[in-house]
């Protein structure tokens, strides 16, 4: 199956990337930095470590998704290696899906490594592993996959610089879109509330996938909520991926 071959190749290619290694080392260092910074928190050291760790996972996952995700397709086109694959009887969607799956695998490996670092730091502090963090980590991974799908989507029709910019904007707006909904609720008669509502439904609501605080403080995340957020993230990612495949299929090399 071409998807498997492309994804395995992409996985090998990305784990050899020095940028990835640097980002990963830095992320793990940040998680352990929480041990030192936690000292200033007046009795909330474990909380600080967990907050730092989950935030580092999300932030560095975003960086990997943006910088490696965008370069992945662009490098193939600029290095003209895409011609070799495109000239073979391999459907275009296999190439895009393979690339996506390969990067998803790399990101999974990163998340697992960062989680081990976080659990190790937590273990040092409270002599146990906090399993409440696992749902939050899974949703961080889903969120990063949505960002990867946007990175591939933008890089399929625009320049790498603009694609990076647009993807980061999607990340920021995605985390702020809840405010739009709240604004419409709190001020129903003010401003362009219909426009805010449209933006809210178009842009991914990444805050739905953010249960970091609830996971750290062991409050209010039930299974129903988790699975709804999970399904939401997967559907969104698939939708963007299908649109990317359609655009990529129509592209002339």
């Amino acid at each position, binding site marked *: 199956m071409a998807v498997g071959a492309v994804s395995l190749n992409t996985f090998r290619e990305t784990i050899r990337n020095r940028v990835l290694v640097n980002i990963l080392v830095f992320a793990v260092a940040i998680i352990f930095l929480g041990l030192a910074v936690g000292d200033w928190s007046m009795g*909330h050291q474990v909380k600080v470590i967990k907050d730092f760790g989950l935030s580092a996972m999300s932030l560095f996952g975003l960086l990997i998704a943006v910088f490696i995700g965008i370069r992945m397709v662009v490098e193939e086109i600029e290095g003209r290696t895409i011609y070799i694959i495109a000239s073979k009887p391999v459907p275009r969607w296999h190439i895009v899906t393979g690339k996506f799956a390969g990067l998803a695998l790399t990101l999974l490996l990163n998340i697992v490594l960062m989680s081990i670092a976080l659990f190790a730091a937590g273990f040092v502090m409270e002599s146990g592993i906090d399993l409440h963090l696992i749902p939050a980590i899974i949703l961080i991974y889903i969120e990063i996959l949505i960002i990867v799908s946007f990175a591939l989507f933008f890089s399929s029709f625009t320049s790498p610089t603009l694609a990076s910019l647009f993807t980061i904007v999607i990340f920021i707006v995605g985390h702020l879109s809840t405010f739009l909904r709240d604004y419409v609720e709190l001020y129903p008669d003010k401003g362009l509330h219909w426009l805010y509502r449209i933006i809210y439904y178009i842009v991914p609501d990444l805050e739905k996938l953010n249960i970091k605080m609830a996971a750290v403080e062991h409050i209010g995340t039930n299974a129903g909520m988790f699975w709804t957020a999970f399904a939401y993230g997967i559907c969104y990612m698939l939708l963007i991926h299908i649109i990317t495949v359609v655009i990529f299929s129509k592209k002339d090399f």
Partner: protein
Amino acid sequence: MKFLKKAGVGIACAGLMLAIHGSQSAMDTRHSIRFVDLSPVFLPKGRVLKACTMGYRSAVADALWMKSVLYYGRRVIDDDNPYYVYAEKKGTYAGEMEAVQKRGTAETADPVRRELQHILNKQSSRGLVTYIYPLLQRVADLDPQFLFPYIFGGVYVLLDTGDINEAEALLLKGYKANPGAWQFPFYLGWISWMYRGDRVSTYRFLQRAIAMDDCPSYVKTLYTGLSRELGKKQEAALYLESLIESTDNMEMKEQLAETLEQLRKEL
């Protein structure tokens, strides 16, 4: 075949859009805008903040000041607070407050719960604004010459919370950092009068306030009025005389002379 492919993609996209909308709406129904927000504010001590902000101390002070205003505005019970208005309109306000009270009164060994109890014990009748003074203290640490945060905490927040000690501590900190600003002795005097009922202290604070160059005339009028009430007219007249002699500011000299003349008529 091509048409079937296109139709398949279209149907898949439509199905995914429906699923996205459905799951998003399902999560939205569980989301509610709450007036009661007890999320704690974690801030390092002022000196640590100073070191961290390096050359951007005043910019960080401004950002913290804005955070303080938003923190206060979000939590204070007021008809200008959209969160409060929303909770009132939806009829959830009483329930939210009751739930918080219940959580706070339960005896517990859990440190997080204990902190919550501490917050609730300190809460004011006008809202849950426990962290406003620590926030304002940080702003003062970062930018000691920024006057309004002191006055905001020392007067406006005090009117809502009645937390005299915190308000006085903030104003005294401001006075120490800005010994030439008349506002600090004036408002410290106001607290002594209104909250402590100590008019002699008020008199002493006003005495210091009127010695400042840009002190408005109403403070001088207040000072003479208070000296009359406390039977200290002679002392006040002597003090005004000494101020007139010591200042080079002509406008201030005139204002003080006017006040002194009025006082002398009564002697």
